């Protein structure tokens, strides 16, 4: 009996994790692709088809920002399991550090950590806590954040992909 239980242990662990993952996918909007439930390639709703939109609240108003590279893990978690708690955790992280206003968009497009939605808008770059604001740059105090998690919704007939909000959360500021 002990030997059989010993040999069954890896399979029982697989079953427990997979069932847990299915329950979480049903209750917390967790992506079927992740968490050990073997749901990869079963839906277009992969973490890569989910994305975040983040804003920081400054005295002058909200500014949309890119998730800094230091918080990529938190962002990944928030995309995979977009619970309020995970979004708030990312939001609170964005409140840390120093946000500086960039004079212009030096490298337009996603991935550079700085680009603004439009050239005319303000865009902000995050620096780690304790970083001295470089000369000539203006620090923007952050009062709070707003984070939204979105996913693709694929049209049944025309292969159109629209976006659908999964969850949002706001944090209060420092």
């Amino acid at each position, binding site marked *: 009996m002990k*030997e059989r239980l*010993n*040999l*069954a*242990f*890896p*399979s029982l*662990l*697989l*079953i427990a*994790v*997979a069932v847990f993952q*299915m329950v979480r996918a049903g209750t917390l909007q967790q992506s*079927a*692709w*992740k*968490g*050990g*439930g*073997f*749901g*990869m*390639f*079963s*839906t*277009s*709703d992969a*973490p890569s*088809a*989910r*994305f*975040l*939109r*983040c804003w920081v609240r400054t005295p002058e108003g909200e500014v*949309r*920002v*890119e*998730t800094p590279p230091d918080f990529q*893990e938190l962002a*990944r*978690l928030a995309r*995979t*399991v977009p619970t309020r708690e995970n979004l708030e955790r990312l939001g609170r992280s964005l409140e840390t550090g120093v946000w500086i206003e960039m004079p212009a968009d030096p490298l337009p497009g*996603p991935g550079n950590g700085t*680009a*603004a*939605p439009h050239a005319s808008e303000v865009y902000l770059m995050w620096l780690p806590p304790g970083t001295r604001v470089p000369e000539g740059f203006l620090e923007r105090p952050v009062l709070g954040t707003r984070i939204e998690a*979105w996913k*693709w919704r*694929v*049209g*049944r007939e*025309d*292969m*159109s*992909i*629209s*976006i659908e909000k999964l969850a949002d959360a706001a944090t209060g500021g420092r």
Partner: protein
Amino acid sequence: MKPLGDFVDAFRAHLAAAAALPVWELATLLTLPLLLLHAGEEWYFKVLLVLLCVPALLLPGLRSRSTLWLAVSVVLLFGYFNRWYSMDNHKFLTGYWALGLYCAALSKDPAAGIRVQARWLIGLCFLFATVWKLITPDYLDARHFEVALLSDSRFEGVAATAGGMSRQDLRANRESVTRLASWNGTEEKVTLRKNDRVRRIAVLLTWWTLAIEGGIAVAFLVPAGWAPARLRHPALLVFLFTTYAIAHVVGYGWLLAIMGVVLTPDDRPRTRVLYFAAMACLYLFMIPDAFRA
């Protein structure tokens, strides 16, 4: 031509000898390189697994020690569960397999024990994969594969060659979805360029995948005496040779091939050689990608 002929003869002799190795030897010898090459990119995989697996490759006595496999499973499972939200499913399966090696090493008959692990882990992972596909509406109406073919670079080769999509259209689709999901995006909807042939391929892939994965789950989960169990190796080999020609997930394919090798009866060395060939093909299938890049 004689040196080439000698080489081929020697290669065949070595291959036959490898296929005739005891099951436990095969399981451990094939698992160690998998762990070294495909366990993960994090430092604890790179460092700790090298420290554990390289000595085990060099010292045959180590490979039968349960302590080795316990240490390997702890490293793998800690790493995978620590970052479960970004780990692919086959990583978890790799962790369970290492744990299976540990449990088998503890048993009275490790060879029989590891066969138990291989059978149940294959059957269960394909069972859950099939259940997920059956309960997901955008899988069943082929939307998932159609979107993947039209906008996922991993499927570009199939969409372009079999689906007749132009590379420009596929690139435009990828740019559209990238814009849509961009942190500073303003678009709310994009429409992918498509054609009827891709739609037909998506439908084919949808039902083929469901059939082969469901078939493997049944074949491996039913008792050995039942009729579907006779299809275990043909179904798994067909899956390996077809799926990974399109989706290049070497670590997953290799792991499934190891389990296939382990489950092959000792008197069927040719089946084992087919699994070895499948392992080689996992890499060969990636060559066109290298040229495209």
